[in-house]
Every structure is written in structure tokens, then in C-alpha cells.
């Protein structure tokens, strides 16, 4: 099926060799057996062929695999409200909404997909009711107050709405923190720790390990 605008997956025809990853594995190996030995051990392979999700800065205008263009815009706003730009980019800056659209279709059940679609519709209809504006035209303050009500099942929102929002939030967090920026800048990412230390001062890293 050819759906150029419905997919955010870009197939790569050539293997993607990620230099940073390769370097870090080589570094770990070198530390124990010397760099010549490490290069020999890993040879040409060991580093898998990647078929990575590709961010599309413009995808907010596109129809998603699951979402309409309107729903994508709402999701984009929600992503940025949950994880905003600070000294690192926000969730929408990293196309987390595009990722979620793809991920829901590829890795989640139909009922889970439907829950998120309904939730986005609910956000829009509630904004219209409360603020007489679409969700994306509402002010940031209005949007935040609406999402806070949903998250806490208050002001007319139900426990189920809160549960569905928690599910969406999990997706946003997963989508954001599994990007390179999320994993390596917001968190401390150690692909090859070199061994296990049972006691390590938190203040010397001051953030959580990625894994």
C-alpha cells in the first residue's frame, strides 16, 4: 500500500551506521582489550541495520496514520504542554505527536487507538463548550486548565477520561525519552557502562539513567 502522507516511517536503503554508538561500544571494548583487538572483534558488523523513525517537522499539517490533521494539531499542542521547550527541545519539537500516531497503529490495540482519538475529540469539544474556541485556538492557560481537569477527573470529567489521559501521557513520555535528545540530554545515557558500581553519588550525575 502506497501512502506517502500516511506514514512517518522512512525506509532506509542503506545501513545506518551510527558513529556515536559505534564509538561508545569500541571505547568500552578498548578499555578492556585494547583498541586494535576491539576493532577486530566488532569487525564490520555487530551494529545492526537501522530503520529508524524519522522526524518530520511539518507533519503537524499532515493527516496521520490514525489521526486527522485536526487531531494531530491538538496532539501537538498537548505534547508541548506536557513536555515544553526548556534548555532542551519540547516534545512537539521532536515530533512526539507524529511518533505517537505511528506507534499507536503499529504497536497498540484498536481499543487503545480509539481511546486516544476520543480523548482528543473530547479536548476539542470541551474547549468549544468552555471557551467558545477550538482547543488549538484557546490560550495556553485555558488549555492547561482543561488538561488539568481531565488529568484529575474534575469539573465534569470522568475517571475514565483521566485514565485515558494517563495512557496518552505515558506515550508522550515514552516517545520523548526514547529520542536521542531525550535519552542522552535529558537523561544520562550509558550504552556501555563498563561494569556495575553498587554505590555511586547521585549528585555526580544529577539525573536519572536512561536505563
Amino acid at each position, binding site marked *: 500500500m502506497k501512502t506517502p502522507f500516511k506514514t512517518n516511517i522512512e525506509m532506509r536503503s542503506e545501513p545506518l551506521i551510527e558513529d556515536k*554508538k559505534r564509538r561508545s561500544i569500541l571505547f568500552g571494548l578498548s578499555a578492556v582489550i585494547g583498541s586494535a583487538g576491539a576493532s577486530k572483534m566488532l569487525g564490520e558488523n555487530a551494529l*545492526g541495520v537501522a530503520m529508524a*523513525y524519522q522526524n518530520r517537522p511539518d507533519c503537524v499539517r499532515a493527516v496521520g496514520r490514525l489521526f486527522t490533521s485536526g487531531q494531530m494539531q491538538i496532539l501537538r499542542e498537548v505534547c508541548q504542554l506536557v513536555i515544553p521547550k526548556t534548555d532542551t527541545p519540547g516534545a512537539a519539537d521532536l515530533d512526539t505527536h507524529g511518533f505517537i500516531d*505511528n506507534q499507536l497503529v503499529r504497536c497498540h490495540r484498536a481499543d487503545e487507538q480509539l481511546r486516544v482519538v476520543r480523548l482528543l475529540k473530547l479536548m476539542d469539544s470541551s474547549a468549544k463548550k468552555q471557551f467558545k474556541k477550538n482547543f488549538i485556538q484557546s490560550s495556553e492557560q485555558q488549555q492547561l486548565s482543561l488538561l488539568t481537569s481531565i488529568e484529575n477527573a474534575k469539573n465534569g470529567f470522568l475517571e475514565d477520561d483521566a485514565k485515558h489521559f494517563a495512557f496518552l501521557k505515558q506515550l508522550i513520555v515514552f516517545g520523548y525519552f*526514547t529520542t536521542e535528545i531525550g535519552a542522552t540530554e535529558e537523561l544520562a545515557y550509558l550504552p556501555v557502562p563498563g*561494569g556495575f558500581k553498587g554505590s555511586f553519588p547521585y549528585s555526580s550525575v544529577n539525573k536519572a539513567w536512561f536505563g
Partner: protein
Amino acid sequence: MNNEMYIKESNQVYDAIVVGSGLSGGWAAKEFCERGLKTLMIERGRVVEHRKDYIGEGVPPWEMPMRGKVDNILLEQRHRIQKQCYAFNDATKHFFGNDRDLPYTTKEGTTFSWIRANQLGGKSMLWHRQSFRLSDFDFKANTHDGYGNDWPIRYSEIAKWYEHVEKHAGISGAKEGLEQLPDSDLFLPPFEMTKPEIDIKAAIEKAFPDRKMIMGRMAHLTKPTELHIQQGRVQCQARNECQKGCSFGAYFSTQSSTLPAAAATGNLHIAPNSVVHSLIYDEKSKQVQGVRVIDNDTLEEREYFGKVVFLCASTLGSTQIMLNSTSKSFPNGIANSSGVLGHYLMDHNYNAKAYGDIPGYEEEYYKGRRPGGIYIPNFQYEPKKGSKKYLRGYALAGGAYREGWKENASNKGFGRDFKDGISNAGKWKFSLSAQGEMLPRYENTVQLHPTLKDKWGIPQLDINCRWSSNELDMMKDAADTAEKMLKVAGVENIKKTVTQKPPGLAIHELGTARMGSDPKTSVLNGFNQSHDINNLFVTDGSCFSSSAVQNPSLTFMALTVRAVDFAVKEIKNGRI
């Protein structure tokens, strides 16, 4: 690895045939080859070469199409059973079986999750690497309560073979001097405990003097010896992504350890993509002559011949082959004059858990991902120490860790505070999970399905296995007991759960071709040799007479090398 090692057709009569290339098969091949026997290892699946074929290794999530999750369609079509395994993900899925091609049935009202790893290296690629010796309390367990038959061996007969395996494989751990969990003299240094674990250990051991909390013993090179370095293996890097494959060779697998040793002798051939259909039995000599094989890809038939045959095809795999090997003398499966082949299937019960929060330790953290946790050995290892409500006992495994971004994703709020809250390490958590012994019961059975076959024309296994009230009662008690231990350790917000997951998911299938002294009630003798056929040995988990509570792999390996040593002596003395 040299390509001449892999064969397809061969008329050669090998000195030894080893069916399977996992933990047991790898050891059998190595030991035969090192004793100078021309050995053929038969593997039903494809070749997986060390390093070269670890395609998921070292790939960060952002380079994976679904960031490590597996596509729905693939799950539905190929991995409906395999996806239940904790180690199954996008970077490991190619080492798990394709459920569509590997059908089996379960008796109505029962469920069994059969995890498969049908490629060179088998489940040695995927195992959890916990390595514990059994003790005489385990070997004698069946003599106390009428369940199962007595193991025909005792600890003193297997101790030196444990040591033989540990030396080559490399097992990290600490000497503890516990009678129910024998030490090794060759332990590599144990992994470190975290600060909260050290304190919890002290609190538990003070409140319950019969219980010890120790570091899990793992087949990881915390400090490789010269022997390990010669194998091309280096120190464990604490990535804890072992099942993707480890180019460091830091954990024991066929690929990292036994296969290179076997290959180095020049005595090894491997027949990959060769699904063993049945064993060829000769009524005149009353021996096995070889194996009938169906090609994994082309479905062509071929045969391989050998003077002695070792079945190391996994518990259910070996039993399936034996049940499907019928002849005039053995109409109900080869080496089955006793009629117990297929019976006494066991697994371990992992269904009870307790966990909670550890207050404090905010400045305390760890570095690296320890590939295993702490272990509380079975403290009900003999009847007088056991519960009055059920038979046998359980071990507890677990550990302490700090919550990270995955747990923090359920935090409430928005914006910068929410973002910062996720990026910071959260509360310390501690958990204990039970690993319970399962009684050997005749009615837990596998047999061949009367009509259904797989694509190779081999009758499907029909599995009839369920927990008994003994296992269910034990899990309730284990959850309560774990909760009490967490309480004395100062753990807060304790939750306990008893789930109802079916047997299979501990991936410790055991029994179905049990050992015993009496040929009327067992399939194998104390050397894993068939009572009925002197050149047929079965050395995987199917030989177990009882499950004990320990992870069984180290014992598979020790029994295998012991059986090879015995078989080679028997051959030299002309008795086989």
C-alpha cells in the same frame, strides 16, 4: 568459524551425535570433541554466529522503528506465545521461535506457554544466566513425601562436574557456606549490592536467622580468567541487554564459550537447519544408529549416523523426538519400556511477589545495569524446616533500584516541573519474587497429538500441565512471607500479588524423561543413559526427577559433562 564445519549431507558414521546446540548440546559437543571423538552437532534452526548475527546489539531505541516495541502484526502472526517472555522485544525477537511454525496443543482447561529458541545456541543466547548448584537436600527431596522417585545421584557425584563447568563458563558469586546452596571454589567476584540492599540484607538476616540474602550467582565474567580471555571473552560491561547477544562474550553462551572450544579441536561438524524427526533404532544390536532429519527449509529427508546419540534438544524437544521414535520394541516411544516418558513435567512457579518503597537514600545511586539481582535461597529445604500447609519450598529473588523516567511517566502535572520531575531519579524500590518448587506429578504430561502435525510432518505435542493446590498454597504463603520480610527491612507502601500465570513462563521445563535407579519407573539411569538402550543419552532438563527451586541450567551443564565422561569411558571399555 570455518565454513567446512557446517555440513548438510554426510555418510560418515560419527563417533557421537549431539542433538541440540543450547546449554547442554554445546557442552556435550565440547566434551566429546576434546576427548577426540568426531562429533556431529545437529541444530534444527539457522546458524547464529557470535557477534556477526547480533543484529539488535548496541542499537539505541531511537534507531529502532518502534523504539524497541514489536509490531502488532508480527506479534499476532508469529509470536503470540513468545511475546509472553520477559526478554522478548524488537532487538531479541529474531532469537525466539515463530509460533506459527511451531504449533502445539494443550488439554482443555489447561495452558502452557512454551518458549522456543530454535537456532544455533538455542536458549543459551536467551537465558537469565542465574547459576546455582543443587544440594543433597534437593537430590533427596523426593524421598520425604511420596512425590516423584529418588534421584539416582547425590551431590558428591556431581560436585566436581559443577566445578568443571564453572571454571570454563565463569560464574560470579560469593561463598556463603550454606548447606542448601553449595559454594564453588572458583567463583568470580560477585556483583556489588547497592547500599539499600546491604541494609535490607542486614535487617532480614537479623529478624530471620534462617534466611540469607545473597548476591545472585551469574554466568557473567566480572573478572575474566586467562582461560576466559583465551576463549575471546572479556569483562561484563553491565549493559544488561544480554539477550540481544553480547559481542564481549561476557556471559556464557554456546557461541561465546563451548562452541569455540569444540570448534578448535577440529573434531566438530554442525548440521544446521536439520529438524530431527526421530531416532533410527536397530532391533538387532538394540542400539540407536542415528537420526532421521527433515530439512528446516526444503523439507527434504536425510539421515545422520553415529555410535552414540546425546539428546540435548530441550526438555520438551527431546521428549517429542523420543515419543515420535517408534519401533517394534518400542511402540510407545523409544527407551520407554517404563511408560513414564512424557510424564512428570515440571516448571517453577514465579507467581508471587511483594514490593514497596525504600525511604531515603536520595544521594545514593548506582552506575551500570546489573544483569541480575539478589537471591534468598530456599530456607524450607527439608521437611522439618518446611511449612505445615504445603510441601517443599521456594527461593526469593529481587533487588533494589531507583525509579526512573518510565515510572515517573505517571506523575501528574505539566510543563517544566513535570519535565524535570521525569529527568530526576525517583524513589528507591525493593521487590522480592518467589521461585517455587513444583511437585513431580504423573498427570502433568506431554504426549503426541493423535492427528495434528507440524510443517515438518512431526506430530504436535499435546501438553497437559497444571499447578496443583500445593503450588497455589505455596505462592500465597510466599507473598505473605515476602511481605513480612519487607516490613522488617523498613520497606513502605508494600504491595503483594499472587498471579495465576500458567506453567511454562519460568522457562524451566523439567522432567518427562526422568532419571532413576529402577528401569521400571524411570527412563534414564544416574548417568543420563537410557535404561533400555545403552548408546542413547538424554542430558537436558527432561532428566530431572524433581525441580528443586534453583535455576536449573548449571545442573544441565554439569550432568551433561558427567554423562559424556561416562559415555566415552564406556565406549573405550567396549561396553557401548
